[in-house]
Structures are given as structure tokens and as C-alpha cells.
């Protein structure tokens, strides 16, 4: 990127022990020698940059870097004399322990950080916020887990709707839509979910309240990702003949196996209307792994997505990264940078406690708010964004397009008739 991402420096040198000689070459990283300019404010991004989740972290990094560039180009933080944001990256690695270590490193080595964003996986966010909470460093996150804002923490701010809430909002909309398209309200639903925390929270209200939604659950299967074969799961879908399938999946390889198997069994492309949760079913990585035509009609519910009115940013993101669309990870961290800027602007000083206080009281429908569904940034007492609702994305013409909420929608939702 443009060298906005500044790696940690300073104290790390002392820690270099046995590995020093071997890695001396790599140590000459770009930007590592740069002194902090007087008019800058340090913000952090703690995401997995290595290990099995690195891909997601990379996308989040791209979004944040563009966000910071835009903010700085547009005058930084006016109330701080136009101070520029200075983004620092921290690698959360591939385990909760590494994520926690990185968070500890972040707060210990950078006492002047005012806010941070992260940490992709909800378990990483959970362990990282244990650190940031104690350090009184505000942390913005898009993790869906219900646990994040139910622990009584005061320095964590969840920008997306919790998975359970997403399902509660989405399901009736889907049922209405089906009724409108087919003339018949779906009465049977099948649930096929992996057993990650966010998927389980998504299906929980449906399992518990199916009667309230007026549907009957005809199949309910939970599997441990990653699958090695989807045959018998899809066979169960096939034999239970649901009118709608709820299928929250988090791992790309499972998406491929399940979707291809549905197509193989003649259930794909809307034959069994399928609603997922999370970004795995709409990620650009799918293009490398599955024919987009096979995705046609699939719907997934996410926390944030490319929305109407963001074309310029999206185009820039696409040009800078070569990605075909921006997606939740890019847009969310982009927006997080703007929330940080707006909170700094409100706080009027470069201090983490002041920023946290500003976040607790912020209520805007402009600026950063434009990058979030609901178009408003206001956090409740637990740190959950009040108007955060689900964003519904549907594959249409080989692309996942936002179809809900209305003010963000880039296309009309369609319900393929059986």
C-alpha cells in the first residue's frame, strides 16, 4: 500500500534475541525509521495478518488504509488542528493467545494510541478486548458475537448487529418477500449450520421462535467445519424438501462443497431459496473457487456491505486492491477509521479516555454514519450500535449486491420461483 501502515517500532528492538541475525534483512521495513510527525494521532488495527485467517485481515487492512488516507486528505481532525491519523498494524495471528499477546503489545508499546479496530474472529475480539478494556483503549469491532457487548465492558463498541438480532430482523422480511413472489408464505424451513459461535447465534432465534415466525423446522443439522464432503448433508436437505434453507457458513471450503453439492443435486440457483449469514457466502475469494453462476440467487445476511452512495470509495478500493468489490471487511474498517476521526473531532483531544467518552455520547447521521447500515452512529450503554441492523446481500448476475436495507440497496431482491 502507500506506506500508511506503520509497523510497531522502538521497544521491539530490545526483544530481538536469538533470531536477530537471521532476520536482520527483513527488519528494514518501510516506514520503521520514521518519527511520528507532531500533528498526528495514533490509531490501531489489530487483525490476523498471518496464519489461517490472514486473508480476512488483509482485506480489513486495505479498507482501513484507504480510510486513513481519505481522512488525512480531507483535512484530518479539524478540532486537533488538522492532525493526521497514523495507522498502526498489529498481527493477531491465528490463535486467541496470539491475538491477546498482540493486543497486550499494542497497549504496552503504544500508550498514545487513542482507539483501535479489530479483531475479525469473535474469539479473537473477545480475548483482545479483555486487554483493551483494562487499558481503557476504545476498540471498534464488527464481530457478531453476542458475548462482546454483554460483559459489562465500557471500551468496546460493536458496530454491527449481533448475529441473533440479524436473524430476527431478516427472517420475517424474507418470508414476506417469498409470499410476494410466489403467492405462498413458506411454511417449512431447514437449518444447516456450522458450529461456529456466530452461526449458532444466528440460528438460535429461529430454532427457538420458529412458531412465532409461522414456520416449521423440517431439518436441523449442525456440522463442524471444515467439511470434507457435503453429500449426506445435502441429501438430508433433498429428502426433507424445505421451502427455505437457513445456511450460515463461515468457511469458504464449506461454501464451495455445499453450494456445488446443491447444484449437483439440482437444488441450487434458488431452487431451494437459501439464506446464509456472514461473509463467507459473498466473499470475493469465492470467484477463485466456484463458478459465480452457481451462486445465483443465494442470499446472505452480513453486518455491512457495499452500499448505495459509496460508489467512489468502492471504485477506489477496487482500483487499489484489485478486488472485485469491497465487502464487509473493507467497508467496516474504512468506516471505523471515520468513526475514530469523528470521535476525535468531538473529543477535541488526543486521549483514549476522551475518545471513549466521545464514542459513548456520539450520535451522528453524517460522516462516518454513511458507511453503516441504518446510517446512524450511536452506541447504547453496552457499546452496541443502536441502529445497527442486518445488511442483506444477494448474488445477482455473478455479484453479491446489497438488497436490504432500502437506503443502502443497490438492487432489488429477487425470489426465484420454483
Amino acid at each position, binding site marked *: 500500500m502507500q506506506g500508511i501502515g506503520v509497523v510497531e517500532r522502538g521497544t521491539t528492538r530490545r526483544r530481538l534475541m536469538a533470531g536477530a541475525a537471521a532476520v536482520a534483512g527483513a527488519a528494514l521495513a518501510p516506514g520503521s525509521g520514521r518519527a511520528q510527525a507532531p500533528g498526528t494521532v495514533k490509531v490501531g488495527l489489530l487483525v490476523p495478518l498471518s496464519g489461517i485467517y490472514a486473508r480476512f485481515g488483509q482485506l480489513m487492512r486495505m479498507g482501513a488504509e484507504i480510510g486513513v488516507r481519505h481522512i488525512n486528505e480531507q483535512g484530518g481532525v479539524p478540532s486537533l488542528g488538522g492532525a493526521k491519523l497514523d495507522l498502526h498494524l498489529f498481527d493477531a495471528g491465528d490463535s486467541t493467545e496470539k491475538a491477546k499477546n498482540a493486543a497486550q503489545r499494542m497497549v504496552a508499546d503504544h500508550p498514545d494510541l487513542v482507539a483501535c479496530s479489530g479483531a475479525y474472529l469473535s474469539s479473537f475480539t473477545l480475548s483482545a478486548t479483555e486487554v483493551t478494556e483494562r487499558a481503557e483503549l476504545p476498540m471498534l469491532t464488527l464481530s457478531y458475537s453476542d458475548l462482546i457487548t454483554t460483559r459489562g465492558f465500557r471500551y468496546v463498541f460493536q458496530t454491527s448487529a449481533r448475529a441473533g438480532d440479524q436473524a430476527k430482523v431478516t427472517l420475517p422480511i424474507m418470508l414476506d418477500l417469498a409470499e410476494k413472489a410466489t403467492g405462498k408464505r413458506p411454511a417449512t424451513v431447514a437449518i444447516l449450520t456450522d458450529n461456529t459461535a456466530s452461526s449458532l447465534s444466528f440460528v438460535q432465534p429461529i430454532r427457538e421462535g420458529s412458531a412465532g415466525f409461522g414456520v416449521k423446522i423440517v431439518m436441523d443439522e449442525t456440522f463442524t467445519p471444515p467439511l*470434507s464432503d457435503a453429500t*449426506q448433508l445435502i441429501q438430508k436437505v433433498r429428502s426433507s424438501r424445505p421451502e427455505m434453507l437457513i445456511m450460515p457458513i463461515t468457511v469458504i471450503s464449506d461454501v*464451495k462443497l455445499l453450494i456445488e453439492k446443491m447444484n449437483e443435486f439440482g437444488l441450487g440457483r434458488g431452487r431451494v431459496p437459501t439464506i446464509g449469514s456472514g461473509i463467507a457466502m459473498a466473499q470475493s475469494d469465492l470467484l477463485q473457487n466456484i463458478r459465480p453462476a452457481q451462486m445465483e440467487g443465494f442470499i446472505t445476511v452480513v453486518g455491512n456491505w457495499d452500499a448505495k452512495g459509496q460508489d467512489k470509495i468502492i471504485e477506489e478500493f477496487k482500483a487499489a486492491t484489485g478486488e472485485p468489490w469491497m465487502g464487509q471487511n473493507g467497508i467496516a474498517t474504512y468506516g471505523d477509521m471515520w468513526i475514530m476521526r469523528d470521535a476525535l473531532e468531538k473529543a477535541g483531544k488526543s486521549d483514549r479516555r476522551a475518545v471513549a467518552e466521545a464514542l459513548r455520547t456520539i450520535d451522528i447521521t453524517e460522516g462516518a454514519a454513511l458507511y453503516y447500515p441504518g446510517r446512524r452512529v450511536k452506541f447504547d450503554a453496552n457499546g452496541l450500535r443502536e441502529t445497527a441492523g442486518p445488511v442483506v446481500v444477494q448474488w445477482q448476475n455473478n455479484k453479491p449486491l446489497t438488497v436490504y436495507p432500502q437506503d443502502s440497496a443497490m438492487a432489488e431482491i429477487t425470489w426465484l420461483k420454483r
Partner: protein
Amino acid sequence: MLQLEGFLQALNAGLLLGAHYGLMCVGLSLIFGVMRVINFAHGDFMMVGMYAAFHIFTLLGLGALLGEGAGPYVAALLAAPVLFVLGYLAQRFLVSRVTGTRVGNLEGEGHYAQLILTLGLSLILQSGGQILFGSVPVSVPSELSSEAWELEFAGGALVVFVNQARAWGAVVAVAIVTLLVLLITRSRTGKSLRAAADNVQAALYMGIDVDRAHRLTFGLGVAITAVAGGLLASSYPFTPYVGLEFVIIMYAGVVLGGLGSTVGAFWGGLLIGVIQQCSALLLPTQLQNTAIFAVFLLVVFLRPQGLLGRVSERT
């Protein structure tokens, strides 16, 4: 009828997937059988094999050349020589230093050193893989991965879908295992590998270059597992960290079949595929891997030498 259909469907999926597992296990088993080394990095070598297949497919334009039907299989086979060289070199420069005749004086016959070394190797392959190949999951494009032959029984009341990509993969896997068995039972090289496995000292007395036999074995074992990975690469998106997901399956399969038995390893892998897919008929799907471990432990306790293993390990 529905239950029967479900069973047949699961069995069919299990057999097809199991053939892929079997091939993977055969590679690991070969190395174990001849060198008595537990290769922790075996799954990561398979990962490199998957990437090799992917890049061979893309760079040689196999999709355009052969189509997305046959192309992926050719790519998988072409990954073998690449991985053979990699395995050969890894044995030549690293593993050989803690195996074979050099470790007689080491604590635990060098097993500790072998474990740590292959763990280190595993780390390097994974992390190096991330640097070289990136972290975007990829798969080899195949037009067969969502195509099935529909077998109708009972006048169409019962339909079994046989996935074409997996079916052809299973055919290739069986063919390779057959070729390998012919190689090690019929050819002089194969026999000398078995001789080196049976008795290192006696093999030396015969003038068999045991070090070379070990290099061949490591290369061959890695290459075979790489082909299995390449075959899966069209239906399974992978990242540099995919090895860990399969290495456990490989160990279980190899032990089930009987440590050191090449054919046994194939049956072990096949059995694991079947258990994994059929367990969901009885147990929650979430526990399908637990079922593998349960059966694995059961078999090991009842028949410690594995299904086809010899009664005692070489001492």
C-alpha cells in the same frame, strides 16, 4: 426407502472420499514403513502439492488445453515430480541427519529429533506458503465438481448421485496405489526399499545404498500424497494451512491399516472416509470426526498391529 437412499448416498460419498484419503495415507505409510519416521510435515507437503497442481494447471493453461474435465487430473499427476524432488531434497539435507544409521547413539533412537525437525519443517512450509502463495483460498477449476451421475434404482424411487470429480479422482487414486504396489513388489528398486525397511543392516551388507533408498522413499511418499492433494484440490478450496486438516486423517488411516503396510494404509484411509460419512447416519453430524477417533482407538486397542499390520513392530 429414504433411509436406504441416505445410507447409499453416504456410503458412496465415503468410498469416493476414502479413496482419496487412502492415497494420502499410502504416501505417509511408505515413509513410515521404510524409515520409521513420523513425518509431522506430511500434511504440509500435501499442501505444497495442491499448490503445485494449481499453478501447473494455471501456468500451463491446462484448462484451455485439456478442458476443465481432464485438466485437473493431469495437473495433480504433474505435481508428483515436483514434490518428489522437494521430498528427496528434504530427506537429503535435513531428515537424513536425524534418521537411519546416524542416530543409534541418540536418546530414543533420534525420534525426538525427528519430531522436532519435521515440526520445524511444517512451520516453514506453512508460513513460507503464505508468503509464496498468499492466503486467498484457491482451488483448481473443474467442471466436474458439481456434476453427478444419477443412478436410479427401484424405478426412480431411489436416486444416488455419484459426484464425477470425486469418482474420477477415486479411479486415479486406485490406479496409483495399484502402480505403487506393483512397483514395490515387482521392481528391483521397490524390493530394495522393502529390504531396507525390513532390515537396514542386512540391506547394507547386500550393497543396497540405504541412504539413497530413504531419499527415494521420502520423495515417493511425499509425491504420492501430493497427488492425493492435487485430486482433492478441485473440490476443496485450500490455503497454506490446509495440511493440518488432513494430517490427522492420514495418521489415523496409517495406524488403522497397520504401521508400515502400504496396502493396509489404503484400506485404512478408505475406512476412515466411510466412517466419516456414514457416522452422521447415527450420530450428530458434528461428531463425525469424533467417530473417526473413536473407531480408531477401538481398532487400535483390539488389534494393536492395525488391520493389515504384521504382529510385531520391528525392534
